[in-house]
């Protein structure tokens, strides 16, 4: 990274840190934003972020011309930028299409989904309605290009033919004693809601605005929660373990950068419905904020380190359906069609979708052979982390809990248990990584990998997780 010849020398402040030149490092205009250690003008800053987005989309072949994309919009800055950028990419694709001689290939379509979780927050009804109207107007404010907007109340995933979802959702959430467990449960329901919207409306991909900061938080909080085995599944560009595959094009952008872009470009956001976070997740977020004080690129460091863990087979698209559109330079990004890699063989947790580790698989196999009650089978289909922080501990309670859960989740147990065996003869056993995050006196954050048998949930005495402040 070189300087494009700033016109005035850099000064150091009292702490000995280089203060930034006020000229854009790329074009020399007046700098307004800091990115990658460089001062950038508004245009170059915007181009910097759009460049990252576009690179993520193209180099991971995220969007095919025939795709119908559902953008998950939360109202916050990151998903607002994702909405803006994908809309722009589409507008440019339309222009090329208009201008091209052969219009054989179509241009992808975009829809927007907003999961309305207001039932879980205790704010005044009229203010909630205003916030949702705001969200609608933000989306409709984009010029034609978004074909539909879907607003789905979270409780809909709990609805059955006879019953309204609201009561069931609230009852289920009330049964979860752990603050973090409750938050994570709601997050899983959010994904289920998005999947339901996508499946019901013919979308082929779901685009999330998850940025580097959110992913860094997830890396550390998953480590703390003992979810080290499944962690790589959640932090890649592509996640195809769901009915509708999920893509994360903003994975390389920081929350701070995205917030700044919204401000500079007057991209309206609506965050009134955000709820306060109380548990491990917010503690980790505060920790990362403090790390940023010393070095703004900490979040990138964390994500880069987590990238060293081997992703799962479902973190790549299968080549089916891509033949016609796939340039040869992108083929390595896809699962090999002729190898076992392309058959999806992972068992996933009923609730959070985490791939099962060896011990969880063995537990499940064992339970299937001797299960007396359905409840044993249900808990065995959940990962150890969900068993620890979400599922009520007493047997009476947990049977009732499962009866409340969305049928989209629990019906899977009945179909799976009725059929095939889980272990293939050539099953590859993935080593389980626990990561110890250590901040040393020099301020270097190092993530150290240790191979260890996956043992249990949160921070038990023998778990090798330490965070030094």
């Amino acid at each position, binding site marked *: 990274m070189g300087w494009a010849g700033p016109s005035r020398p850099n000064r150091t402040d009292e702490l000995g840190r280089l203060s930034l030149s006020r000229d854009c490092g790329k074009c020399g205009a007046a700098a307004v934003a800091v990115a990658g250690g460089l001062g950038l003008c508004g245009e170059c800053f915007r181009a910097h972020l759009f460049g990252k987005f576009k690179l993520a989309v193209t180099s991971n072949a995220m969007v095919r011309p025939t795709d119908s994309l559902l953008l998950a919009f939360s109202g916050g*800055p990151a998903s607002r930028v994702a909405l803006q950028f994908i809309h722009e990419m589409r507008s440019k694709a339309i222009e090329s299409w208009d201008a091209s001689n052969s219009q054989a290939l179509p241009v992808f379509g975009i829809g927007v989904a907003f999961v309305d979780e207001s039932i879980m927050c205790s704010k005044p009804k009229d203010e909630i309605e205003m916030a949702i109207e705001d969200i609608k107007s933000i989306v409709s404010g984009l010029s034609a290009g978004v074909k539909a907007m879907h607003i789905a109340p979270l409780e809909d995933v709990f609805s059955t033919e006879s019953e309204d979802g609201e009561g069931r959702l609230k009852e289920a959430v009330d049964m979860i004693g752990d603050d973090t467990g409750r938050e994570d449960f709601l997050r899983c329901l959010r994904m289920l809601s998005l999947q339901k919207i996508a499946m019901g409306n013919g979308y082929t991909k779901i685009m999330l605005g998850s940025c580097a*900061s959110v992913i860094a938080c997830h890396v550390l909080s998953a480590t703390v929660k003992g979810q080290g085995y499944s962690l790589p599944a959640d932090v890649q560009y592509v996640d195809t373990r769901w009915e509708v595959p999920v893509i994360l094009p903003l994975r390389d952008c920081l929350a*701070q950068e995205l*917030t700044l872009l919204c401000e500079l470009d007057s991209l309206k956001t609506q965050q009134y419905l955000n709820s306060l976070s109380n548990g491990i997740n917010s503690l980790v977020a505060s920790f990362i904020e403090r790390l940023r004080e010393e070095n703004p690129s900490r979040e990138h460091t964390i994500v880069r380190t987590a990238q060293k863990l081997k992703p799962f087979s479902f973190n790549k698209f299968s080549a089916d359906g891509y033949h016609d559109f796939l340039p040869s330079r992108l083929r390595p990004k896809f699962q090999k069609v002729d190898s076992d890699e392309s058959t999806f063989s992972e068992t996933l947790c009923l609730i959070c979708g985490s791939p099962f580790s060896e011990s969880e698989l063995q537990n499940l196999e064992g339970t299937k052979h001797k299960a007396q009650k359905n409840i044993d089978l249900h808990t065995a289909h959940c990962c150890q982390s969900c068993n620890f922080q979400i599922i009520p501990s007493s047997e009476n309670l947990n049977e009732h809990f499962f009866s409340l859960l969305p049928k989209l989740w629990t019906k899977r147990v009945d179909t799976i248990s009725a059929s095939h065996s889980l272990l293939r003869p050539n099953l590859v056993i993935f080593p389980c990584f626990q990561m110890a995050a250590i901040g040393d006196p020099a301020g270097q954050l190092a993530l150290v990998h240790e191979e260890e048998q996956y043992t249990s949930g949160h921070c038990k005495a023998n778990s090798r997780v330490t965070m030094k402040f």
Partner: protein
Amino acid sequence: MHLTLEFGGGLELLLEKSIKMHKVDVQPIDGQEKVMMKGLLSWVKSNLIKERPEMFLKGDSVRPGVLVLINDCDWELCGGLDAELEEKDVVVFISTLHGVL
């Protein structure tokens, strides 16, 4: 000195009636000729923040995770705490929340 202050990303909840935009008149601290960012921060703490000041300030500066813009420019490029403010400047404070964005 007349300034326009804006609060966003949730910071407005710390202010009276969650009002986001404030037109204020700030005097330099005794002895000083100009209003510096440092002085503005303590003025905001005393006059605008109604609750949980630790969500906005840490020591002399803003809490980590709070973005500060002076006239649409990152304050790091304007001198940070030592930035000198001028009449009619617009200062924006935004919290960059983690979680689902």
